[in-house]
């Protein structure tokens, strides 16, 4: 079975149109990121987060009353998966674990009939939150630099630039989508936490995979078809690898979709970022990474003549 007969699509001629598409998507995302922002997870914010299970589904309003009476009026309260499970989060930055204790005692006092049990409790000190944010930032930046160096070393420097610009594109588009979806439905409410950073780094790895496979073909075709125009070589290489790109990305997409839908609360944000990242990653390796390599070759030729 095969989905693709030998294709011969002229990808590079359509690049201007796709630059335009990317520009629109990125600016929409950026606008949303700037004005709407993006939610941080508890590990980056610092504070206390509790996931409490009640014997019977409680009313959020009542929980709020119980907590307001103890001075936690600003606490974020929401249902977490199962209607009996409630996530409570405060950004009170005290050392020690008093906040969690006070919330727990407030709840067990208020809900005498409805027994509670703690499913998960997390307390992140103010300094740790800042540190984790910083580490995450470095992790993403370092991985981009590492990609630039590695690809530049294995291919040519401009290939590295193309791949890294494509990665920036993927990361910003995915961040933008997460920001846009924020608050629309509880199912798509994602936060930037450590798991999400892991997702972004994996996205970086996978997206660069696609670029590398195409670059590898270009490198090979350059040796074989010495007389061919560079533009045709790039087009041919993308076409040659198109079947692989679609099959691989398609398989990973399905795998991630399943994890996103059935994998539970903890890995959902992670799976979403990757599912979306696979799409933009595949797209960007063709229309951004390869196109940049081509644009650069055009410029070089112009300078020569």
């Amino acid at each position, binding site marked *: 079975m095969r989905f693709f007969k030998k294709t011969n699509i002229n990808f590079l001629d359509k690049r201007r149109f796709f630059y335009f598409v990317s520009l629109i998507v990125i600016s929409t995302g950026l606008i949303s990121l700037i004005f709407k922002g993006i939610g941080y997870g508890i590990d980056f914010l610092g504070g206390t987060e509790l996931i409490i299970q009640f014997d019977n589904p409680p009313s959020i309003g009542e929980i709020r009353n119980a907590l307001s009476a103890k001075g936690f009026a600003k606490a974020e309260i929401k249902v977490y998966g199962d209607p009996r499970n409630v996530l409570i989060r405060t950004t009170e930055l005290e050392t020690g674990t008093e906040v969690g204790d006070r919330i727990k005692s407030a709840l067990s006092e208020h809900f005498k009939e409805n027994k509670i049990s703690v499913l998960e409790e997390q307390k992140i000190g103010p*300094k740790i939150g800042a540190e984790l944010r910083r580490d995450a930032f470095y992790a993403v930046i370092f*991985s981009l630099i590492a*990609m630039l160096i590695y690809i530049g070393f294995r291919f040519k420097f401009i290939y590295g630039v193309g791949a890294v610009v494509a990665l920036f594109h993927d990361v910003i588009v995915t961040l933008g989508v997460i920001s846009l979806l924020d608050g629309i439905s509880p199912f798509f409410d994602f936060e930037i936490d450590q798991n999400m950073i892991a997702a972004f780094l994996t996205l970086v790895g996978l997206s660069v*995979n696609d670029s590398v496979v195409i670059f590898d073909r270009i490198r090979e075709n350059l040796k074989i078809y010495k007389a061919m125009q560079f533009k045709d070589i790039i087009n041919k290489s993308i076409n040659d690898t198109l079947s692989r790109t679609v099959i691989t990305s398609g*398989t*990973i997409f399905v795998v991630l979709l399943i994890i996103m839908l059935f994998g*539970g609360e903890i890995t959902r944000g*992670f799976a979403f970022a990757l599912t979306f990242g696979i799409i933009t990653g595949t797209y960007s390796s063709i229309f951004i990474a390869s196109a940049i390599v081509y644009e650069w070759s055009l410029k070089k030729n112009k300078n020569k003549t």
Partner: protein
Amino acid sequence: MKKERGKIIIIIAVVLISLYLLYPTYQDYNYSKKLESLRGEDSVKFLEENEQAIRDVKFKRIKLGLDLQGGMRVVLEVNTPKLLIDLAKNKDETFNTIMNEVMIDARTSDEPITSILLRKFNDRGIRLSRYYGSIRETNEEIISKLESEATNAVDRAIEVVRNRVDQYGVSEPTIQKQGARRIIVELPGVSKEAEVRQLLQGTALLEFKLLKDPEVVIKVTDAIDKFLAGKPIVDSLSADTSKISDTTKNVASNDTSELTIPEGQKTELEAAKEHPFYYLARPDQRAQGEFFVSEDNREKVNRILRRPEIQKLIPSDMEFLWSAKHAFIAEGKKWYTLYAVKSEAELTGGVIVNARATIDPNYNQPIVTMEMNAEGARDWARITGANINKRIAIVLDNAVFSAPVVRSKIIGGNSQIEGLDNIDEAKLLEIVLKAGALPAPVDIIQQQIVGPSLGQDSISRGINSSLIAFILTVIFMIIYYNKGGFVADFALLFNLLFILAVLAGFHGTLTLPGIAGMILTMAIAVDANVLIFERIREEAVTGKTLRAAIDAGYSKAWTAIFDSNLTTFITGVILYNFGSGPIQGFALTLMIGIVASMFSAIVITHVIFNIMADRNMKISFG
């Protein structure tokens, strides 16, 4: 075929090693299944019969992260400002004001506390020697001393925490130092928050306790031994003999059945019947009144000693304490020393001013010197004077770290502890002695508690979704690539086996993001096969023979697979270094998975195809 022999041997070896590494995990699963099916008495019996085996497989199985099995993760930080306050002398109003400012700055700044302190002192033009060290020391000297005090405090805190966690009996705890001032403690399966917090934050209690006279100890243990063996006690120390013999029979029969003696070792069986207590707690031949107990029997001995009938045999001023570290390793087990000491402490650690581990220049032996304050020195002189040639145990939070012999009356409070095996032991003792003298104040800066039920839920969801994803991938590969896909699926299974085996072999931890990482590597393994198969299809079109097309496909796909996998591997390395806990689990499985997938996709499938081609089997790539 011959050409492939080397590769086939490697593949078989790798598979065998993987199965060997995974066997404990499988056994562990069997044991817990079996335990679940048993009730009450039976389960206790099963547990005792297989105690050693269960412990062994537990150690070698794949560990589950806290997110999967529930438990507590706590990050402690030594409160350096508080330590600095504790260390200061002649504290006055100015000092308190300065320290308050230091604390406020420390909360938000990354600057080392000591340099904040120095800056505040310099701002005011006050020298540090007003509160620390001696008058002749410069600020720099004092600061470097304070810095080393702060570092030592972390070591002390770790030792105190480790000691307590060991005594508390958490299975597979992890205690690590992170950076300069932090301690990460992971306690799987523990959810009693308040207890654990006490465990981690309470002040350490250091005590000096006299060892009981060996003769007295032996009388007591003889009585316990006889009682357990069901014999009448001739020389009873405290209890009413007639009353005990009533219950003797039935208790004794229970106890001997508890002991596990392999068949065919009659003498040992007899020994166990004859002397049930000494069979568990072997008397030390060199030091009378001390006993060695192997790690698997510790809990058993504790149970015996806690029994009310046994408690009656032990004088009220005597108690049994364990050594903090094992004395030696024999028969593949660690053996701990059981000491009998006077319940009441002679002295507590508060009187110690300083302790230092050094090498005795005269004998070139490691020693620990200990200094006491005036009040302590006075008591110490009296205690040592009255107990020459007796032994005093150094006890931290109820665990004995050392039990040196008193050589002479010590006047002035400067003591020297000799006879330590090596400098590490001396350093540990120094830490222990200081732990009692100068508590290292720690704050909980991060705490995560995962309830066991959330763990259960996460596991089942994670595994189910992974399974669905895996099955779909497998089916797709067969449909799309026909026999080639079938071979690739075969390699995928091996891939899974390798990842799990490496995790077990390196004592890695499986976390939920780790499972996600595993699925992702499955996808990457599929990618490698897709790259190869697409290449083989292309080559076949050019009119090559099947064998030639396969070889060309593999060799041409190689650079693409290598480069793309290496880039993913690099992100894995970066993730592992920056992430914490669960993220590291993800990065670890990702890295293992990439290596495993390259092996399975390139070596294994290639060998299979070559064998199939040699045997003229029909191979198709869809």
